[in-house]
């Protein structure tokens, strides 16, 4: 059962990813990304990470992707322009990616049983999670606040400043 589910969602996930690449309109790409993320959330669930699955849906598919779509709308981004592109990206990049993928694949395949659908014993409870989070990993948690602070600060600074600038210049 789990195995089947796994394969279904894994396939969905990959399809989403490929679609993301193939779509030329950003909004479509964004939607495909949401597909990827939600299917990943299912996979998390299969791997026993229920909290993460929830978080994935809420934070990623919800918040982050909303942000993305919002910006796409804001900037009124249209279809991708057909630009010349970079020859280096193709000539160098693809072989490199292929090689990278191959190498990584060897590594992961060597690691026995990792890539396959896992057994279902031991669903990590949110309790355990938070226990660790607020004891052993308290510091990172706190530090994250600084991160968030900076992100907010930066985003505000960048966007607000632009407004002021624009109004000032006009």
């Amino acid at each position, binding site marked *: 059962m789990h195995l089947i589910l796994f394969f279904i969602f894994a396939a969905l996930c990959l399809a989403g990813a490929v679609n993301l690449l193939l779509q030329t309109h*950003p909004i479509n790409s964004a939607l495909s990304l949401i597909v990827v993320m939600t299917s990943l959330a299912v996979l998390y669930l299969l791997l026993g990470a229920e909290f993460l699955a929830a978080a994935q849906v809420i934070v990623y598919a919800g918040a982050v992707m909303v942000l993305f779509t919002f910006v796409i709308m804001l900037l009124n981004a249209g279809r991708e322009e057909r630009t010349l592109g970079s020859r280096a990206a193709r000539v160098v990049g693809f072989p490199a990616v292929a090689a*990278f993928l191959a190498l990584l694949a060897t590594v992961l395949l060597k690691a026995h049983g990792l890539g396959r659908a896992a057994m279902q014993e031991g669903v990590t409870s949110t309790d355990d999670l938070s226990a660790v989070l607020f004891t052993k990993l308290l510091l990172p948690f706190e530090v994250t606040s600084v991160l968030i602070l900076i992100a907010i600060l930066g*985003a505000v600074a960048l966007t607000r400043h632009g407004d002021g600038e624009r109004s000032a210049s006009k």
Partner: protein
Amino acid sequence: MLSAILFSLGVIGFLIKRNLITVFMSIELMLNAVNLSFVTFAHQWHAVKGQIFVFFVMMVAAAEAAVGLAIIIAVFRARATLAVDRIDLMKL
């Protein structure tokens, strides 16, 4: 394995997408790939830490998204384009 493929797809996305936002999305894809592997490893080792790591990665991704999109907006305002290949004022 899946995560590797996903990761690579993300990388490819970075390489072929022509829009800053989609490029950024590709990065998110890469992060998700990593997350997947974290969860898998966490599952394998029965270690909560892996999951927590994922949690943090999500937060970081969110923060990055905020900042990154702000920057993209700034770029758009300054240059009125989102095409990756147009952003090459500085070279040589």
